[in-house]
């Protein structure tokens, strides 16, 4: 199982709905594995409200570079209904590049699993919930 995809979750302040579905995705897809502390992740999942304040943490978490950063859920995609836009979304293109985003509140687990696989395999088409 050496080629399992190591998934790291960075929670910026979510309600836990996305985390429940992420955990379910990790149970549904045997090729996905929660990344252990200190290991290099193959993909980073970003959940919760993205703000200018926590943007730096999101950028720091994807070090070393080139790790796809997939936004999961409405809060990470559009700040949801929690905060007035503060400019953080303008930084998304440089932060996330062409990595897929999974919409929904929360997204369903198989869409998350598929997005992770898309993020690490550029040949496959983008998906959303």
């Amino acid at each position, binding site marked *: 199982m050496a080629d399992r995809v190591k998934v790291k979750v960075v929670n910026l302040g979510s*309600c836990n*709905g996305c985390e*429940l579905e992420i955990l379910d995705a990790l149970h549904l897809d045997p090729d996905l594995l929660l990344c252990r502390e200190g290991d290099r992740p193959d993909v980073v999942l970003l959940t919760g409200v993205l703000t200018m304040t926590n943007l730096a943490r999101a950028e720091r978490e994807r070090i070393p570079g080139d790790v796809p950063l997939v936004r999961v859920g409405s809060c990470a995609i559009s700040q949801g*209904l*929690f905060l007035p836009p503060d400019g953080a979304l303008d930084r998304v293109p440089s932060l996330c590049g062409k990595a897929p985003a999974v919409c929904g509140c929360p997204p369903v687990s198989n869409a998350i699993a598929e997005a992770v696989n898309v993020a690490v395999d550029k040949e496959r088409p983008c998906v959303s919930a």
Partner: protein
Amino acid sequence: MSPREVTLQFEVPEVYRLHLRTGMDGTIREARVEGELASREVGRLVASRYRDPHKALYVVERVCGACSQAHTLAFSCAVERVLGVSVPMRAQAIRTVTAELERIQSHLLTLSETAALAGARGLEQELWRTWQKVTAVLAAVTGSRVHYGINCIGGVVHDLPPEALRAASGALADLGRSLGDLDGVFEREAGSRLRGLGVWKAAGRDLPGTGPNQRASGSPRDVRAERPYLLYADLPLMIPIRTEGDVLARTSVRLEELHISHRMVKDLLSALPEGEVRIADLGGPRPGSASMSVEAPRGEDRHDVVLSADGEVDALAIRVPTEDSLLGVSEALIGVHEEDARLVVASFDLCLSCFGGT
């Protein structure tokens, strides 16, 4: 020997930092749990941007993904108290069913994490499969397996038609078979590791709050029994109590509550009261304030609501059960080896989404 300080950070399923002060042998002498979340301040958000109580429900539901029914229920009931209306019996039954299914869902989530950290991987997988089964029942009853969107001011959003009831009953029977396989499973698979670990005792005082953590430490308190709401006054409510206060006692209380909740849901679905599922006319706006406490899966969840003369929310304060459990975690970690710290914390089922969301 000089003590040292350790900070551990965890992301899934909860985001928290555990600040530990340990002896050279790794035994914890002081412990503090700290969340690291963007504060969503749902109470302030509702009172400033989503003041219509009907719209506010959508926001209140997102205080927490694991106990959204508890939050929308407490908020709806508080608003209904201000309005002076009584919810139809059938709606109360559907609300009760959803609340008890949510308790099963939340407990299974905690038990699954506890099993994983105790090294019982097979048990963790089995518990997760059971979690998937309870979410199937929730989907049959409410239409969704996370954030159910079932409550509205004055009742529930939709009825349970016969075909949905059949689907829910079938999924519930499947869940019941899985729950039967879980009897005494922690005792068998990890009893020697969990017994006597992370003890939280009353030690001659009243433990703060309610919930499974307190009930595993000898406190009989449960909001459903102390201040019955919905149909709890008429249901055969059993409250499991342990006195050991250790990790095994906390898992045992939750395992017993799974069966009790399952039985309540089964009884309610087999004899749903007839009638409407929401009040057609809520009357005009009415100013006032009210509080409502419900027994969420983790303990007492209280919403204090103030409505203005035009019927909008002027203020909302939410008090979540994790506030009470944080004290327990800090005390239970003393004397535990730092390698077991995460397991002890998991057994308390902290919800820093609730804590950071309010």
